[in-house]
Protein backbone atom coordinates (compact mmCIF):
# COMPACT_ATOMS: atom_id res chain seq x y z
CA UNK A 1 0.00 0.00 0.00
CA UNK A 2 2.86 2.33 0.74
CA UNK A 3 3.98 1.78 -2.86
CA UNK A 4 0.98 3.50 -4.42
CA UNK A 5 2.97 6.73 -4.81
CA UNK A 6 5.54 4.86 -6.84
CA UNK A 7 2.92 3.38 -9.13
CA UNK A 8 1.25 6.75 -9.56
CA UNK A 9 4.61 8.22 -10.58
CA UNK A 10 4.62 5.63 -13.36
CA UNK A 11 1.41 7.03 -14.80
CA UNK A 12 2.06 9.66 -17.51
CA UNK A 13 -1.21 11.62 -17.09
CA UNK A 14 -0.72 11.89 -13.33
CA UNK A 15 2.89 13.04 -13.65
CA UNK A 16 2.00 15.44 -16.46
CA UNK A 17 -0.63 17.11 -14.28
CA UNK A 18 1.61 17.09 -11.24
CA UNK A 19 4.45 18.68 -13.22
CA UNK A 20 2.17 21.41 -14.47
CA UNK A 21 0.90 22.21 -10.99
CA UNK A 22 4.35 22.21 -9.40
CA UNK A 23 6.26 24.19 -12.05
CA UNK A 24 5.21 27.71 -10.91
CA UNK A 25 6.16 26.99 -7.30
CA UNK A 26 9.65 25.86 -8.22
CA UNK A 27 10.09 28.59 -10.82
CA UNK A 28 9.10 31.45 -8.52
CA UNK A 29 11.04 29.94 -5.64
CA UNK A 30 14.13 29.68 -7.83
CA UNK A 31 13.73 33.27 -9.07
CA UNK A 32 13.40 34.61 -5.54
CA UNK A 33 16.36 32.67 -4.19
CA UNK A 34 18.57 33.56 -7.14
CA UNK A 35 17.82 37.27 -6.73
CA UNK A 36 18.57 37.09 -2.99
CA UNK A 37 21.73 35.08 -3.63
CA UNK A 38 22.97 37.48 -6.31
CA UNK A 39 22.36 40.51 -4.09
CA UNK A 40 24.05 38.79 -1.17
CA UNK A 41 26.97 37.61 -3.26
CA UNK A 42 27.62 40.78 -5.22
CA UNK A 43 26.76 43.43 -2.65
CA UNK A 44 26.56 42.17 0.90
CA UNK A 45 29.49 39.72 0.98
CA UNK A 46 32.77 41.46 1.81
CA UNK A 47 35.72 41.13 -0.60
CA UNK A 48 38.06 38.24 0.15
CA UNK A 49 41.23 39.36 1.91
CA UNK A 50 43.44 37.64 -0.61
CA UNK A 51 41.44 37.29 -3.82
CA UNK A 52 39.63 40.59 -3.56
CA UNK A 53 36.43 40.65 -5.57
CA UNK A 54 37.50 37.75 -7.78
CA UNK A 55 36.19 35.29 -5.27
CA UNK A 56 32.66 36.44 -6.18
CA UNK A 57 32.90 34.11 -9.17
CA UNK A 58 32.27 31.33 -6.69
CA UNK A 59 28.60 32.32 -6.49
CA UNK A 60 28.08 31.23 -10.08
CA UNK A 61 30.88 28.69 -10.45
CA UNK A 62 30.10 26.48 -7.48
CA UNK A 63 26.34 26.22 -8.19
CA UNK A 64 27.08 25.38 -11.84
CA UNK A 65 29.53 22.67 -10.80
CA UNK A 66 27.00 21.40 -8.27
CA UNK A 67 24.34 21.30 -10.99
CA UNK A 68 26.59 19.37 -13.36
CA UNK A 69 27.01 16.52 -10.88
CA UNK A 70 23.53 16.59 -9.39
CA UNK A 71 21.89 16.52 -12.82
CA UNK A 72 24.07 13.62 -13.94
CA UNK A 73 23.20 11.66 -10.81
CA UNK A 74 19.50 12.43 -11.25
CA UNK A 75 19.72 11.32 -14.86
CA UNK A 76 21.43 8.04 -13.95
CA UNK A 77 19.01 7.25 -11.11
CA UNK A 78 16.01 8.00 -13.33
CA UNK A 79 17.52 5.89 -16.12
CA UNK A 80 18.12 2.99 -13.73
CA UNK A 81 14.50 3.16 -12.52
CA UNK A 82 13.36 3.27 -16.14
CA UNK A 83 15.48 0.26 -17.09
CA UNK A 84 14.56 -1.86 -14.09
CA UNK A 85 10.82 -1.20 -13.97
CA UNK A 86 10.40 -0.31 -17.64
CA UNK A 87 8.91 2.98 -16.56
CA UNK A 88 8.36 5.36 -19.44
CA UNK A 89 8.09 8.40 -17.16
CA UNK A 90 11.48 7.68 -15.60
CA UNK A 91 13.07 7.56 -19.05
CA UNK A 92 11.39 10.88 -19.84
CA UNK A 93 13.00 12.35 -16.69
CA UNK A 94 16.42 11.06 -17.75
CA UNK A 95 15.98 12.47 -21.25
CA UNK A 96 15.04 15.86 -19.79
CA UNK A 97 18.25 16.06 -17.79
CA UNK A 98 20.97 15.87 -20.43
CA UNK A 99 20.75 19.32 -22.02
CA UNK A 100 20.39 21.07 -18.66
CA UNK A 101 23.34 19.19 -17.20
CA UNK A 102 25.59 19.68 -20.21
CA UNK A 103 24.94 23.42 -20.37
CA UNK A 104 25.69 23.96 -16.69
CA UNK A 105 28.81 21.83 -16.97
CA UNK A 106 29.85 24.19 -19.72
CA UNK A 107 29.09 27.17 -17.46
CA UNK A 108 31.17 25.63 -14.67
CA UNK A 109 34.09 25.22 -17.10
CA UNK A 110 33.89 28.79 -18.40
CA UNK A 111 33.56 30.38 -14.95
CA UNK A 112 36.30 28.12 -13.62
CA UNK A 113 38.54 29.18 -16.47
CA UNK A 114 37.80 32.89 -15.84
CA UNK A 115 38.68 32.37 -12.21
CA UNK A 116 41.79 30.50 -13.27
CA UNK A 117 43.03 33.51 -15.24
CA UNK A 118 43.18 35.49 -12.01
CA UNK A 119 44.53 32.73 -9.83
CA UNK A 120 46.96 30.96 -12.11
CA UNK A 121 47.42 33.50 -14.85
CA UNK A 122 46.37 31.05 -17.57
CA UNK A 123 43.02 30.27 -19.17
CA UNK A 124 43.38 26.59 -18.58
CA UNK A 125 45.11 24.77 -15.78
CA UNK A 126 44.99 20.98 -15.42
CA UNK A 127 43.42 21.33 -12.04
CA UNK A 128 41.74 18.07 -11.00
CA UNK A 129 38.35 19.68 -10.54
CA UNK A 130 38.36 21.43 -13.88
CA UNK A 131 39.66 18.27 -15.56
CA UNK A 132 36.92 16.15 -14.01
CA UNK A 133 34.40 18.75 -15.07
CA UNK A 134 35.69 18.58 -18.64
CA UNK A 135 35.37 14.79 -18.67
CA UNK A 136 31.86 15.10 -17.29
CA UNK A 137 31.07 17.34 -20.25
CA UNK A 138 32.35 14.59 -22.56
CA UNK A 139 30.13 12.06 -20.77
CA UNK A 140 27.13 14.33 -21.34
CA UNK A 141 28.07 14.77 -24.99
CA UNK A 142 28.36 11.00 -25.42
CA UNK A 143 24.94 10.52 -23.86
CA UNK A 144 23.39 13.15 -26.11
CA UNK A 145 25.19 11.77 -29.15
CA UNK A 146 23.95 8.23 -28.53
CA UNK A 147 20.41 9.46 -27.94
CA UNK A 148 20.47 11.48 -31.14
CA UNK A 149 21.83 8.57 -33.18
CA UNK A 150 18.96 6.19 -32.36
CA UNK A 151 15.68 7.02 -34.03
CA UNK A 152 13.26 4.88 -32.07
CA UNK A 153 12.52 6.73 -28.81
CA UNK A 154 12.16 3.59 -26.72
CA UNK A 155 15.44 2.13 -27.87
CA UNK A 156 17.15 5.51 -27.48
CA UNK A 157 15.78 5.73 -23.94
CA UNK A 158 17.06 2.33 -22.99
CA UNK A 159 20.46 2.53 -24.68
CA UNK A 160 21.29 6.02 -23.41
CA UNK A 161 19.89 5.10 -20.00
CA UNK A 162 22.30 2.20 -19.77
CA UNK A 163 25.13 4.54 -20.77
CA UNK A 164 24.13 6.96 -17.99
CA UNK A 165 24.22 4.14 -15.43
CA UNK A 166 27.61 2.94 -16.67
CA UNK A 167 28.81 6.55 -16.59
CA UNK A 168 27.69 7.21 -13.04
CA UNK A 169 29.52 4.11 -11.84
CA UNK A 170 32.62 5.45 -13.57
CA UNK A 171 32.40 9.08 -12.42
CA UNK A 172 33.94 8.45 -8.98
CA UNK A 173 36.66 6.23 -10.50
CA UNK A 174 37.46 8.91 -13.06
CA UNK A 175 37.47 11.65 -10.44
CA UNK A 176 39.79 9.82 -8.07
CA UNK A 177 42.13 8.75 -10.84
CA UNK A 178 42.35 12.38 -11.99
CA UNK A 179 43.05 13.57 -8.44
CA UNK A 180 45.69 10.86 -8.09
CA UNK A 181 47.24 11.82 -11.43
CA UNK A 182 47.26 15.47 -10.46
CA UNK A 183 48.95 14.82 -7.15
CA UNK A 184 51.82 13.12 -9.02
CA UNK A 185 52.53 15.90 -11.41
CA UNK A 186 52.28 19.09 -9.42
CA UNK A 187 52.64 20.30 -5.89
CA UNK A 188 49.28 20.62 -4.17
CA UNK A 189 47.95 24.01 -5.07
CA UNK A 190 47.60 26.47 -2.22
CA UNK A 191 44.79 28.25 -3.97
CA UNK A 192 41.98 25.80 -4.27
CA UNK A 193 38.69 26.69 -5.82
CA UNK A 194 36.44 27.23 -2.86
CA UNK A 195 37.70 27.22 0.66
CA UNK A 196 36.81 25.01 3.58
CA UNK A 197 36.13 27.84 6.01
CA UNK A 198 34.20 30.88 5.00
CA UNK A 199 32.73 33.64 7.10
CA UNK A 200 28.92 33.47 7.25
CA UNK A 201 28.52 36.63 5.21
CA UNK A 202 30.25 34.85 2.34
CA UNK A 203 28.82 31.40 2.95
CA UNK A 204 25.16 32.32 3.25
CA UNK A 205 24.79 33.78 -0.26
CA UNK A 206 26.52 30.65 -1.59
CA UNK A 207 24.05 28.37 0.14
CA UNK A 208 21.17 30.49 -1.15
CA UNK A 209 22.54 30.27 -4.69
CA UNK A 210 22.93 26.48 -4.39
CA UNK A 211 19.31 26.17 -3.26
CA UNK A 212 18.18 28.54 -6.01
CA UNK A 213 19.95 26.55 -8.72
CA UNK A 214 18.48 23.33 -7.38
CA UNK A 215 14.97 24.76 -7.57
CA UNK A 216 15.75 26.11 -11.03
CA UNK A 217 16.77 22.62 -12.10
CA UNK A 218 13.51 21.24 -10.73
CA UNK A 219 11.48 23.84 -12.63
CA UNK A 220 13.38 23.27 -15.89
CA UNK A 221 13.09 19.51 -15.45
CA UNK A 222 9.34 19.66 -14.93
CA UNK A 223 8.76 21.78 -18.03
CA UNK A 224 10.94 19.50 -20.16
CA UNK A 225 9.38 16.41 -18.59
CA UNK A 226 5.96 17.45 -19.84
CA UNK A 227 7.33 17.77 -23.36
CA UNK A 228 9.12 14.42 -23.16
CA UNK A 229 6.01 12.70 -21.81
CA UNK A 230 3.90 14.09 -24.65
CA UNK A 231 6.49 12.84 -27.14
CA UNK A 232 6.24 9.34 -25.66
CA UNK A 233 2.48 9.03 -25.43
CA UNK A 234 0.49 7.68 -28.33
CA UNK A 235 -2.90 7.12 -26.75
CA UNK A 236 -5.19 10.04 -27.35
CA UNK A 237 -7.52 9.90 -24.38
CA UNK A 238 -5.77 12.03 -21.79
CA UNK A 239 -3.57 14.05 -24.15
CA UNK A 240 -6.58 15.81 -25.60
CA UNK A 241 -7.63 16.99 -22.15
CA UNK A 242 -4.08 17.93 -21.26
CA UNK A 243 -3.68 20.04 -24.38
CA UNK A 244 -6.96 21.84 -23.85
CA UNK A 245 -6.28 22.62 -20.20
Amino acid at each position, binding site marked *: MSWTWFHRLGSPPYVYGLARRLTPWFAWGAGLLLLCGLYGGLVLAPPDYRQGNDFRIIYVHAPSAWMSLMVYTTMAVAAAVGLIW*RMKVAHAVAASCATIGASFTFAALVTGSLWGVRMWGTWWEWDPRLTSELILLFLYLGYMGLRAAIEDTQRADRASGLLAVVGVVNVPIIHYSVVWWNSLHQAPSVMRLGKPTMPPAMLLPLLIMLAGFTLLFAALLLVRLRGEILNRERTAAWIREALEA
Partner: protein
Amino acid sequence: MPHALEAENLQLWRAERHVLRGVGFALDAGECLQLRGANGAGKTTLLRAVCGLLYPDAGRILWEGGDVRADLAAYHARLIYIGHEPPLKPDLSALENLRFWIGVRQAVPRPALEAALERVGADRWSRRAVRTLSAGQRRRVALAALALLAVPLWLLDEPTTNLDADGQQLVGTLIDEQLARGGLVLAAGHHALRVAAARVRSLELPLG
Protein backbone atom coordinates in the same frame (compact mmCIF):
# COMPACT_ATOMS: atom_id res chain seq x y z
CA MET B 1 -4.98 -27.20 -18.22
CA PRO B 2 -3.21 -24.18 -19.73
CA HIS B 3 -2.23 -24.02 -23.38
CA ALA B 4 1.40 -24.82 -24.19
CA LEU B 5 1.99 -21.42 -25.73
CA GLU B 6 -0.31 -18.48 -25.47
CA ALA B 7 -0.04 -14.86 -26.57
CA GLU B 8 -2.44 -12.41 -24.99
CA ASN B 9 -3.36 -9.09 -26.56
CA LEU B 10 0.11 -8.14 -27.82
CA GLN B 11 0.55 -4.45 -28.55
CA LEU B 12 3.73 -3.14 -30.06
CA TRP B 13 4.74 0.23 -31.40
CA ARG B 14 7.70 0.99 -33.59
CA ALA B 15 8.32 4.73 -33.40
CA GLU B 16 5.02 6.16 -34.70
CA ARG B 17 3.74 2.88 -36.14
CA HIS B 18 1.32 0.64 -34.27
CA VAL B 19 2.63 -2.69 -35.57
CA LEU B 20 0.90 -5.26 -33.38
CA ARG B 21 -2.62 -4.26 -32.44
CA GLY B 22 -3.84 -6.70 -29.88
CA VAL B 23 -2.63 -9.96 -31.44
CA GLY B 24 -3.42 -13.12 -29.51
CA PHE B 25 -3.37 -16.86 -30.11
CA ALA B 26 -3.11 -20.14 -28.27
CA LEU B 27 -1.21 -23.24 -29.35
CA ASP B 28 -1.28 -26.72 -27.88
CA ALA B 29 1.21 -29.54 -28.16
CA GLY B 30 1.33 -30.90 -31.69
CA GLU B 31 -0.06 -27.80 -33.36
CA CYS B 32 1.34 -25.53 -36.04
CA LEU B 33 0.27 -21.94 -36.51
CA GLN B 34 1.05 -20.21 -39.77
CA LEU B 35 1.26 -16.42 -39.64
CA ARG B 36 0.04 -14.77 -42.80
CA GLY B 37 -0.26 -11.17 -43.82
CA ALA B 38 1.03 -8.62 -46.28
CA ASN B 39 4.61 -7.38 -46.14
CA GLY B 40 4.86 -5.05 -43.17
CA ALA B 41 1.92 -6.60 -41.37
CA GLY B 42 4.21 -7.54 -38.50
CA LYS B 43 4.86 -11.26 -39.01
CA THR B 44 8.55 -11.01 -38.16
CA THR B 45 7.80 -8.57 -35.34
CA LEU B 46 5.32 -11.03 -33.86
CA LEU B 47 7.81 -13.91 -34.08
CA ARG B 48 10.49 -11.82 -32.42
CA ALA B 49 8.07 -10.74 -29.72
CA VAL B 50 7.03 -14.34 -29.07
CA CYS B 51 10.63 -15.45 -28.64
CA GLY B 52 11.28 -12.61 -26.21
CA LEU B 53 13.63 -10.48 -28.30
CA LEU B 54 11.10 -7.68 -28.51
CA TYR B 55 9.36 -6.39 -25.45
CA PRO B 56 5.70 -5.70 -26.28
CA ASP B 57 4.19 -2.45 -24.99
CA ALA B 58 1.28 -4.45 -23.63
CA GLY B 59 0.25 -8.09 -23.46
CA ARG B 60 1.94 -11.27 -22.30
CA ILE B 61 3.46 -14.44 -23.68
CA LEU B 62 2.64 -17.52 -21.60
CA TRP B 63 4.49 -20.83 -21.75
CA GLU B 64 2.52 -23.61 -20.07
CA GLY B 65 0.57 -20.97 -18.22
CA GLY B 66 3.50 -18.94 -16.87
CA ASP B 67 4.73 -15.59 -18.12
CA VAL B 68 7.92 -16.24 -20.09
CA ARG B 69 9.49 -13.07 -18.67
CA ALA B 70 9.67 -14.79 -15.28
CA ASP B 71 12.47 -17.06 -16.49
CA LEU B 72 13.52 -16.06 -19.96
CA ALA B 73 16.61 -18.30 -20.08
CA ALA B 74 14.57 -21.43 -19.32
CA TYR B 75 12.04 -20.44 -21.98
CA HIS B 76 14.81 -19.79 -24.49
CA ALA B 77 16.27 -23.24 -23.82
CA ARG B 78 12.98 -24.63 -25.12
CA LEU B 79 12.79 -22.77 -28.39
CA ILE B 80 14.69 -22.21 -31.57
CA TYR B 81 14.18 -19.17 -33.75
CA ILE B 82 15.37 -19.03 -37.34
CA GLY B 83 15.11 -15.64 -38.95
CA HIS B 84 15.11 -14.47 -42.57
CA GLU B 85 18.80 -15.27 -42.93
CA PRO B 86 20.30 -18.31 -41.24
CA PRO B 87 22.98 -17.12 -38.76
CA LEU B 88 25.95 -18.53 -40.67
CA LYS B 89 29.48 -17.21 -41.04
CA PRO B 90 30.70 -17.06 -44.65
CA ASP B 91 34.25 -17.99 -43.64
CA LEU B 92 33.30 -21.21 -41.86
CA SER B 93 32.13 -24.44 -43.44
CA ALA B 94 28.57 -25.65 -43.02
CA LEU B 95 29.75 -28.27 -40.55
CA GLU B 96 31.73 -25.76 -38.45
CA ASN B 97 28.86 -23.30 -38.48
CA LEU B 98 26.45 -25.93 -37.25
CA ARG B 99 28.87 -27.13 -34.60
CA PHE B 100 29.37 -23.67 -33.11
CA TRP B 101 25.73 -22.68 -33.43
CA ILE B 102 24.24 -25.78 -31.82
CA GLY B 103 27.20 -26.49 -29.54
CA VAL B 104 26.62 -23.28 -27.57
CA ARG B 105 23.20 -24.64 -26.65
CA GLN B 106 23.79 -28.34 -26.15
CA ALA B 107 26.54 -30.89 -26.46
CA VAL B 108 26.25 -32.58 -29.86
CA PRO B 109 28.60 -35.39 -30.91
CA ARG B 110 30.13 -35.05 -34.34
CA PRO B 111 28.37 -38.09 -35.86
CA ALA B 112 25.02 -36.51 -34.95
CA LEU B 113 26.07 -33.30 -36.73
CA GLU B 114 27.05 -35.22 -39.83
CA ALA B 115 23.87 -37.28 -39.75
CA ALA B 116 21.78 -34.12 -39.55
CA LEU B 117 23.62 -32.56 -42.47
CA GLU B 118 23.16 -35.75 -44.48
CA ARG B 119 19.47 -35.72 -43.65
CA VAL B 120 19.04 -32.29 -45.26
CA GLY B 121 21.13 -33.29 -48.25
CA ALA B 122 24.16 -31.27 -47.22
CA ASP B 123 26.65 -34.09 -46.84
CA ARG B 124 28.31 -33.45 -50.20
CA TRP B 125 29.11 -29.78 -49.49
CA SER B 126 29.21 -29.70 -45.69
CA ARG B 127 32.93 -28.90 -45.69
CA ARG B 128 32.77 -26.05 -48.14
CA ALA B 129 32.90 -22.48 -46.85
CA VAL B 130 29.39 -21.10 -46.53
CA ARG B 131 30.54 -18.16 -48.68
CA THR B 132 30.44 -20.50 -51.69
CA LEU B 133 26.96 -21.88 -50.99
CA SER B 134 23.70 -20.78 -52.58
CA ALA B 135 20.87 -19.22 -50.56
CA GLY B 136 18.92 -22.49 -50.73
CA GLN B 137 21.90 -24.47 -49.49
CA ARG B 138 22.27 -22.10 -46.53
CA ARG B 139 18.62 -22.64 -45.72
CA ARG B 140 19.26 -26.35 -45.63
CA VAL B 141 22.02 -25.88 -43.07
CA ALA B 142 19.46 -24.10 -40.89
CA LEU B 143 17.11 -27.06 -41.37
CA ALA B 144 19.88 -29.32 -40.08
CA ALA B 145 19.85 -27.23 -36.88
CA LEU B 146 16.12 -27.90 -36.57
CA ALA B 147 16.68 -31.62 -37.04
CA LEU B 148 19.36 -31.61 -34.34
CA LEU B 149 17.84 -29.57 -31.56
CA ALA B 150 15.11 -31.40 -29.70
CA VAL B 151 13.30 -28.32 -28.45
CA PRO B 152 9.52 -28.13 -28.17
CA LEU B 153 8.98 -24.73 -29.82
CA TRP B 154 10.06 -23.79 -33.32
CA LEU B 155 9.73 -20.20 -34.51
CA LEU B 156 10.42 -20.04 -38.23
CA ASP B 157 10.46 -16.95 -40.40
CA GLU B 158 9.69 -17.85 -44.03
CA PRO B 159 11.11 -21.37 -43.65
CA THR B 160 10.64 -22.33 -47.30
CA THR B 161 12.22 -19.25 -48.92
CA ASN B 162 14.84 -20.10 -51.55
CA LEU B 163 14.16 -23.83 -51.29
CA ASP B 164 13.42 -26.10 -54.24
CA ALA B 165 10.43 -28.47 -54.26
CA ASP B 166 12.49 -31.15 -52.59
CA GLY B 167 13.59 -28.73 -49.87
CA GLN B 168 10.05 -27.55 -49.26
CA GLN B 169 8.98 -31.14 -48.84
CA LEU B 170 11.81 -31.56 -46.32
CA VAL B 171 10.53 -28.59 -44.30
CA GLY B 172 7.09 -30.20 -44.26
CA THR B 173 8.50 -33.53 -43.11
CA LEU B 174 10.55 -31.92 -40.35
CA ILE B 175 7.53 -29.96 -39.12
CA ASP B 176 5.39 -33.10 -39.21
CA GLU B 177 7.92 -34.95 -37.10
CA GLN B 178 8.10 -32.06 -34.66
CA LEU B 179 4.30 -32.02 -34.34
CA ALA B 180 4.19 -35.79 -33.97
CA ARG B 181 6.65 -35.47 -31.06
CA GLY B 182 4.21 -33.06 -29.47
CA GLY B 183 6.21 -30.01 -30.44
CA LEU B 184 4.86 -26.64 -31.50
CA VAL B 185 5.61 -24.70 -34.66
CA LEU B 186 4.99 -21.05 -35.35
CA ALA B 187 5.84 -20.22 -38.95
CA ALA B 188 5.57 -16.94 -40.80
CA GLY B 189 5.11 -16.93 -44.55
CA HIS B 190 2.79 -17.32 -47.49
CA HIS B 191 3.86 -20.58 -49.00
CA ALA B 192 1.59 -23.47 -48.09
CA LEU B 193 3.49 -25.73 -45.74
CA ARG B 194 3.50 -29.34 -46.90
CA VAL B 195 2.30 -30.77 -43.65
CA ALA B 196 -0.72 -32.76 -42.53
CA ALA B 197 -3.39 -30.10 -42.93
CA ALA B 198 -5.40 -30.95 -39.85
CA ARG B 199 -2.71 -29.69 -37.52
CA VAL B 200 -2.08 -26.39 -39.25
CA ARG B 201 -4.08 -23.33 -38.39
CA SER B 202 -3.38 -19.91 -39.73
CA LEU B 203 -3.53 -16.42 -38.33
CA GLU B 204 -3.99 -13.46 -40.64
CA LEU B 205 -2.29 -10.29 -39.49
CA PRO B 206 -4.00 -7.13 -40.75
CA LEU B 207 -1.81 -4.44 -42.26
CA GLY B 208 -1.39 -1.68 -39.67
